[in-house]
């Protein structure tokens, strides 16, 4: 049994170590750094199963939800680092430097810091920690998005992300201050306690919550805060796009679930918030899926698709209720959907990076005839697309099924209706890629070489997509037994005093 906080501290130390090695090392080839990070992070995935469940405190929850999202964060970072290795040759072209490998070290260490932020966020049950970890994630992303300094699209994406991100953070902090002002607390459990015992004016509370939703809506790319997504996704270095679309989204949703929980039981507030979330979900699904239809650039298409998937996840969030019995199913739906989404999105980006490097472009037409050039990659991409579209026996199908089931349980039939319509639209554009790969003649016929590490990752992700789709029951049982839901373990308990804080979590 190890204290839970030691995981995050290890990740942070790893990041610091990587920075130091980067600054002292004379060698140009920094790929060793990334490989070391991959190794250590993989070990941490294993260690995370031996966490002492009693090592949490008022700021920091140790429960199944936290564990689940920490594993997600670690796995995502590992795959992103693998992508970065594959992408390093492209990256080097857009970096000023005398030698080809210069300046790549930070590209490998910043994702590690992001990972630490994501892991903190998975456990955060206090607005202070939520905010600090969210900023750790976001600021590393600002740098990473604009990393290709000689590439105008990347710079433009960076500026857009910085400005709009700062705007949304402003709303988030503003929202937190409103809620703090009303309840006098920043701890979620304490807020719930205060809301239950004190009389709190509804209108300012709703106002504060709406500002919170704005900040988090930006992170998960929900309509109407989604405008940054296509430009930033297209301009950012591809591994970072993948990280954004998975990591940022997962973080946003875990925080959203945790933050919503104390407010659901407040009369006149919970119902309204869920109604607005349902509205956002419907708009997000429609916007993401419809705007994806005419796209010709694959990264941009995935950006819109990521908006669409945020919509399905919001459907599940909007279907939570404050009673514990049904609360679990929506939480499980979100968790499972995110896990499946992680697998298929990372898979498609991984294949995209390999293909784009060989085809010198990331438009759909660069995928023409991929089945002839590399059946392995084509099959992996086929798997990813089928899963994103939601074909049975894939992770994506089962995730959608759970989400829609949660919505039906909550009686939100109109959301299911819109959901099914947009899924149909989704089939249309995902299968365009499949058609290009299998039915078009390849532009150039050079076979594609894949690094062993990348090949392993692609194979593992492809397999996992099917495993999640064909026998999800063991995983789901784990989630349910582990009590994965947005319900905090310490909900309703009186908040601990600040004196009880144990800085090392021991």
């Amino acid at each position, binding site marked *: 049994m190890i204290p839970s906080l030691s995981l995050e501290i290890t990740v942070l130390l790893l990041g610091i170590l990587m920075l130091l090695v980067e600054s002292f090392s004379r060698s140009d080839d920094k790929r060793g750094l990334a490989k070391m990070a991959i190794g250590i992070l993989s070990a941490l995935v294993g260690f995370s199963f031996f966490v002492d469940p009693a090592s949490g405190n008022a700021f920091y929850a140790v429960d199944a939800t936290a564990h689940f999202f920490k594993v997600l964060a670690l796995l995502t970072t590992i795959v992103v680092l693998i992508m970065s290795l594959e992408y390093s040759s492209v990256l080097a072209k857009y970096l000023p430097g005398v030698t080809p490998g210069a300046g790549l070290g930070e590209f490998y260490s910043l994702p590690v810091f992001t990972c630490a932020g994501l892991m903190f966020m998975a456990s955060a049950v206090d607005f202070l920690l939520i905010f600090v970890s969210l900023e750790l994630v976001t600021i590393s992303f600002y740098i990473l998005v604009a990393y290709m300094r000689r590439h105008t699209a990347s710079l433009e994406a960076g*500026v*857009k992300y910085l*400005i*709009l991100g700062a*705007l*949304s953070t402003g*709303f988030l902090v503003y929202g937190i201050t409103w809620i703090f002002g009303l309840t006098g607390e920043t701890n979620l459990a304490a807020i719930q306690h205060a809301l239950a015992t004190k009389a709190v004016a509804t*209108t300012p509370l*709703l*106002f504060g*919550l*709406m*500002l919170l*939703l*704005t900040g988090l809506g*930006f992170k998960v790319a929900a*309509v*109407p*805060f989604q*405008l*940054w997504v*296509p*430009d930033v996704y297209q301009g950012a270095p591809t591994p970072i796009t993948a990280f954004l679309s998975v990591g940022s989204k997962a973080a946003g949703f875990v925080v959203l679930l945790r933050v919503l929980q104390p407010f659901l039981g407040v009369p006149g507030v919970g119902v*309204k*918030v869920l109604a*607005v979330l349902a*509205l*956002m979900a419907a708009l997000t699904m429609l*916007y993401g*899926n*419809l*705007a*994806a*239809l*005419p796209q010709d650039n694959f990264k941009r298409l995935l950006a819109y698709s990521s908006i669409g998937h945020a919509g399905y996840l919001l459907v599940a969030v909007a279907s939570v209720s404050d009673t514990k019995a049904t609360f679990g199913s929506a939480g499980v739906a979100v968790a499972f959907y995110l896990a499946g989404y992680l697998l298929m999105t990372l898979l498609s980006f991984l294949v995209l990076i390999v293909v784009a490097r060989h085809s010198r472009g990331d438009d759909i037409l660069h995928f023409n005839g991929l*089945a*002839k050039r590399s*059946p*392995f990659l084509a*099959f992996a991409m086929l798997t990813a697309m089928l899963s994103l579209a939601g074909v*049975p*026996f894939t992770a994506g199908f*089962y995730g959608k*099924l759970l989400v829609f*089931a949660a919505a039906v*349980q909550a009686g939100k039939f109109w959301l299911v209706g819109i959901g099914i319509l947009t899924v*149909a*639209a989704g*089939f*249309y554009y995902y*299968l*365009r890629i*499949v*058609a290009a790969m299998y*039915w078009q003649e390849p532009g150039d016929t050079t076979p594609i070489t894949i690094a062993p590490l990348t090949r392993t990752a692609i194979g593992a992700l492809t397999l996992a997509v099917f495993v999640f789709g*064909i*026998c*999800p*029951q063991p995983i*789901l049982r784990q989630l349910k037994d582990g009590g994965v839901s947005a319900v905090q373990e310490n909900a309703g308990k009186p908040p601990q005093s600040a004196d009880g804080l144990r800085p090392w979590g021991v």
Partner: protein
Amino acid sequence: MESHAYFPWFILLAPLVSAVLIQLFLRRSRELSATISVGAVCVSLLASVFVFFGPDTVKANEIPWIELPDFHVPIGVTVDALSKIMLLVVTGVGALVHIYSLVYMKGDESEARFFGNLSLFMFSMLGIVLANNFAMMFIFWELVGVSSYLLIGHWHTRDTAAAAANKAFLTNRIGDFGFMLGILMVWSSVGSVVFRDIEHNLRLITADPTYLTIAVLLIFCGAIGKSAQVPLHVWLPDAMEGPTPVSALIHAATMVAAGVFMLARISFLIAPSPNAQAVIMWVGIGTAVLAALMATQQDDIKRILAYSTLSQLGYMVMAIGLAAPGPAMFHLFTHAFFKALLFLGAGAIIHALHHEQDIWKMGGLSAKMKWTFRSFTAGYLALIGAPLLSGFFSKDAILAAAWQTNKLVFLLALLTAFLTAFYMTRLFVVVFLGQPRSDAAKHGHDGPAAMTLPLIILAVLSVVAGYSVIGERALGEHLWENVHKIHHGEGVGAVMALAIGAFVIGTAGGWVLYKGQAKDPILIPLFKNKFYIDELYAALIAGTQDLLATMSGWFDKWILDGLFVRGLSGAAWGTGFVLRFLQIGNLQAYAFLFGLGVVGLIYFLVFA
């Protein structure tokens, strides 16, 4: 779990493994992929044989897949008499066709793709046979549609092949839509999609006869599509554009039989609804007669066989409608052998004659292609119901069932039997007897052993499969009892006499009319043009469909429901195009819209 429980999974997974391996790694190595594919089907065959001789009901083993409060879908297999015989037919014919394809497809540049798709088809077909619930069956049902699409369109550079593949896929989709609705109706009434549970809770759905009839008829729509019954029969003759082994496997023995199999699987649902039975019966006999009439005037050897298949499938469907699933499965069983034999024989001829398919350019092949001729003769005689061959017994059972239920239907069935004898004799006489009528026909020759051997094996099976020793063992106690009862019902003697009479008259008529002819002495435009049904459909669809088709471009083939979704996607694309203008790329505009969104949502949340 006892070892028997594993065999069904071997049957199912062997072709899947082969398909995945070939798709993933072996697209460039033709021979290895062919070997793997043949190996996989042999594993399936072997496992099927074990299952066949294994215990009658293997303890159900299932993996829970979807577990929601009101909706359970396991991934599970059924092993009973019905699936056992079907497994044997599918893997048996499948194995022979695989071996035959080794020769037939040699030298094709996409041989690996062909074998990969063939394995995929075997996987999906076996999935239908083994499925223990509607949801799984439907998924495999769709997979069969996809893999047959890929196989029909194997030579996709040929426009006709691509068009035929599209036609098959879309026509099937129409039927499948009904199938899906039917499944939903059954589920909403019984609360389960597992066959076992539905059978146990049958009274829940039989309580409302109208509801049941509608549900059964909707499910029957799926069978109409897949088994190519009137009015959705149009895809099957066109599907002959695919490679001949595919025609033999898919469009004679297995895929088209899936509809009949499915009806037999749910016969417990059909039995309580006399109205549905009547509809099924009339659709069946209608198909049988119409297809037989069309077959009398075709010139393409594969098309004649295709219409003959349609006609025989009509028989089977009719038998289901006559509450005689036993004879239906019996006929399916024997038909699978002799029709696969006829197709493979036709394939051997086509192969030898360098892809000549017009029967009027053949002739005199009996001397040149001895083994093909001998085996073909066996299949021919079995099909037309020559006494003491397999087709005679199974057809007789169906005719007897018709006699015992409805005399008018019996007369029509008898007419079909006569027509069958007539057009098959026409085919036989024109192709094998007389003088060679083209250069190619003069140089015909038997194929290599891998091609001839399957023919001989199938010929033997076609001769003996009808005897009760084999039939009883193959069909299992329950189904055979059904056959047995009909065979000992009233009017059996008269039926047999009349059937033999139809056979004799038909054969003699064909022989007299076509002996020594160099071109068709009779011309009936109505039959030759297939009652103008294709033209009618084309005219109906052309106006609306073509307009939309041009808009959606080449990826039409991915569209699920033809006309319906085509309109929808057009609308959706338009909306997407408009939405794209929101994305103007200007940061100030984004920030402005962002603020607008905040204000809007605050209005909604706080003030609305």
